[in-house]
């Protein structure tokens, strides 16, 4: 790992100030992706601004059906929050299967969403739940936020503070993990809420998380696994690698979507 200067931020504003003062700074959330990347010398920020301890960016609030999760809330906290689990079990289950227990103690929702790894779980949830990503500068709809793998609407120096969404009537996530990395080889989040049915797919596409209009249409007619039987998922645009080709991933998209719908009840 190349040398860097470490700063601990006390607030979101403090973090923004420290970041803007750095030559080539980076925000450090839980570090579960950034630190391995730095160890492999694939990233070498001059400064690291640690926001993991910023209180105003932590915690889960449920107000009516509106859920707000601070960006620095860890996966373990999302997975074990009883109030959240009762109103939106799908996202709690999703968080409980990210990485492993030690990773879940450090990794944060904000870090995952900002990184937009094409095999990460949270982007699928954000997109399917129609979440709003709140930054220190503005609010961004999930549909506008995710812009292809590792690419988001965040500007240079912009920082996610929290995300919020309306808990759907039904929602669940089904994931087929990559056998080696245990990242999603295909993960599908389905949600049936006030705005209709939304289906978001992570892990399978060759350019990151995406929504499936065909499946949303089919499920809008009937929210049941059987409703997806006649939907054909094309292998075009699917990822192909040593763990499975595009045809296999296309198959997984449908299988996981059906399982998510079944789990959503």
């Amino acid at each position, binding site marked *: 790992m190349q040398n860097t200067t470490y700063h601990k931020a006390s607030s979101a504003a403090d973090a923004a100030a420290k970041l803007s003062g750095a030559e080539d700074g980076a925000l450090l959330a839980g570090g579960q992706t950034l630190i391995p990347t730095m160890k492999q010398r694939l990233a070498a920020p001059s400064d690291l601004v640690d926001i993991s301890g910023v209180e105003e960016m932590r915690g889960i609030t449920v107000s009516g059906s509106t859920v707000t999760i601070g960006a620095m809330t860890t996966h373990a906290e999302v997975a074990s929050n009883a109030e959240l689990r009762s109103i939106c079990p799908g996202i709690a289950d999703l968080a409980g299967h990210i990485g492993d227990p030690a990773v879940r103690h450090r990794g944060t929702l904000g870090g995952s969403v900002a990184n937009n790894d094409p095999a990460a779980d949270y982007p699928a949830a954000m997109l399917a739940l129609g979440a709003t990503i709140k930054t220190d500068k503005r609010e961004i709809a999930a549909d506008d936020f995710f812009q292809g793998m590792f690419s988001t609407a965040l500007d240079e120096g912009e920082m996610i503070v929290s995300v919020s969404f309306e808990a759907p009537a039904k929602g669940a996530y089904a994931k087929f993990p990559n*056998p*080696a990395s245990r990242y999603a080889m295909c993960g599908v989040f389905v949600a049936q809420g006030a705005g209709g049915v939304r289906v978001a797919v992570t892990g399978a596409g060759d350019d990151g998380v995406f929504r499936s209009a065909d499946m949303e249409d089919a499920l809008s007619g009937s929210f049941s696994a059987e409703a997806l039987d006649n939907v054909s998922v094309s292998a075009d645009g699917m990822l192909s690698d040593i763990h*499975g080709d595009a045809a*296999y991933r296309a198959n997984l998209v449908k299988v996981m979507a059906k399982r998510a719908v079944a789990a959503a009840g």
Partner: protein
Amino acid sequence: MSEGIGAAVKRKEDKRFITGSGRYTDDIKLENQAYAAFVRSPHAHANVKSIDKSAAEAMDGVLAVLDGKQLTGDGIGNIICGWAITSKDGSPMNMGAWSALATDKVRYVGDAVVAVIAETQAQAAEAAEAVMVEYEELAVAANIEAAVADGAPQIHDNAPGNVIYDWDIGELADTDSALAGAAHVTEMDITNNRLSPNAMEPRAAITKYDAAEDHYTLYTTSQNPHVARLVLSAFYQVAPEHKLRVIAPDVGGGFGSKIYIYPEEIVCLWAAMKTKRSIKWTADRTEAFLTDAHGRDHVTNAKMGFDADGNIVGFKVATKANFGAYMSLFSSAVPTYLYATLLSGTYNIPNIYCEVLAVYSNTVPVDAYRGAGRPEASYLVERMMETAAREMGKDPAELRRQNFIKEFPHQTPVIMNYDSGDFEGNLNQAMEAADWNGFEARKAESAARGKLRGIGMACYIEACGIAPSAAVGSLGAGVGLWESAEVRVNPVGTIEILTGSHSHGQGHETTFAQVVADRFGVPLDSVQIVHGDTDKVQFGMGTYGSRSGPVGMSAIVKALDKVEAKVKKIGAHLLEEPEENIVIEEGTVKATGTNKALGWHEIGLAAYTAHNLPPDMEPGLKEGAFYDPLNFTFPMGCFICEVEVDPDTGKTEILKFVASDDFGVIINPMIVEGQVHGGIAQGVGQALLEEVVYDENGQQLSASYMDYTMPRADDVPSYDVLHHNTKCTTNPLGIKGCGEAGAIGSPPAVINAITNAIGNNDLSMPATPSKVWAALGAAKIAAE
């Protein structure tokens, strides 16, 4: 007695490991210690045009930047393969030169080119990035087929067509005629997937040079420190043997990968002398994938012929074995004498012929990995038997039973002479434990849930403790494969056992002590095992090939025999009784028929005070022995695996795994079962999960745990491990060896279960979900 042979004694060595007090190589920090980092080739095949070290040399903390020309200029020799194989035509194998630092050419991604020595690890790593190597890229042969293709790039000048040897065994004409007359011939093309051993402790080396004494010390992650010292001295001329101490402290797993002498140890020793500094190098996991010797990687065509009654009449095998870019220490023996000699399996096969084409490729060197040749043989034989049974419409268990060898000793057509076994006994035990007969009901239950259930078996046999030395020497081995031991009874009666075996997880500190405790009835805690240090222990051959039990412990027994003889003489003298009446029981030396007795400590004291010993007896109580086995030992067994396949995703779940092994006499059943558990997990890993994948440019696509699938706790089941043992007839304890069996028998059992579930025999390892899903699709199309 409760601590002796057969007792499931808890391990003596555990305490330091469970409290974080283990002492692994990387835990050691020497005075005046600097760090090494290696500049490695990013290309699979290239000429080294120039090396510009100036920027690196100018960096903070850099002590030396060393290249291959300096290394060879100082007389450091090439890395060698220690087993000479002769081709069919009588020509010797074609061993290409392997310098610890490449001089003019690199042959795989990861090939070491330059070593940087610096004050800190970070400085060394940063300076290594600043070394500018100019390469001229060459065409790449990244797999067997590419290496043997017409016009393939020439990897070593002295190996035309990249062929190292073209070897055979058995009778070609007899086998051909047997197959020609067979009522049924099963033919298969079988690939044995390439694996990375992945001991959890990465390789490491720390070297120290004492200029005043011209003496070197190497702490290293080795399975065989004496062999390391011998090779480093005699072949690489790093240091004379008596001026080099090699210490292998606690070693975090080996599985074969830590047998070999790698470039890094050589370079760190040499660099310690050049810089007059102690030098540490520790691999990271990526370096481990790029440099630790890989295992397996065979492509085979096989034909097995049966008569009308289902008796095997002939077996013909043609295998191509990938050796990687250089010949590693024991590489040549793996696809020959550790593979082809096991092709008779557990069966009476009158005619066998096998030819093996050994080839270079632009990949990491390949050598022995847990099982080494025997897993490849077992996988081949047991998939052939299963497929043949299905093709002939026979019950797979009955076809095996019918062809089993039932009388011993049994001479196979491929060198091996099996001494003992009861193959049907193991088969019956495994089938009963697996409830083989209840399978159809379970299959129906799975089907009702939309799942495909399958059951498969494998009846493996393997060979441990390569022996005897004269025989392996005649087959080309550069070393003898005996083992040594020294038993020191101290004046107070405590006992130290110095063994040439090396424990890196096998529990020798407990098992070996049990043999001593059993012999003399002394407390286990009074016995200490000393190993892994060439300054303390007499020359020994180390631990691999499941040899520590059958060979290492036999050497201890032989030394104990000598100690016992001397103790009895001393006892007879002190008790004034005839020697033939002296017995040793419960740590006491007694004269039968009398109440005269001496405590064990009294014998020790008498031996060392020497005030009253028999006339002409030397003082002291210390005996050494070298044990050269009479024959290999032949562990065997029957494994049964039951799986459930999810047809939607192709994912396989192992529901039940039964192992019935014949290991001969078992010293500590708890430890033996642990060895079987670990072996099965590695075999399941090979069958379902693991594969080193190269692209056509020779880049490893699976060089981290993000892409190389290590078996995790939720990938494997709990195992039912059973024994049905017959005593080995060729060593004093009757031990057969247990370290590799699990990894040898399990891959075919798993694949036979999956192919049974999906109704398609055309499935290769690893049977990943995507591959099983595709095979299911192919089976569906075939059925329509």
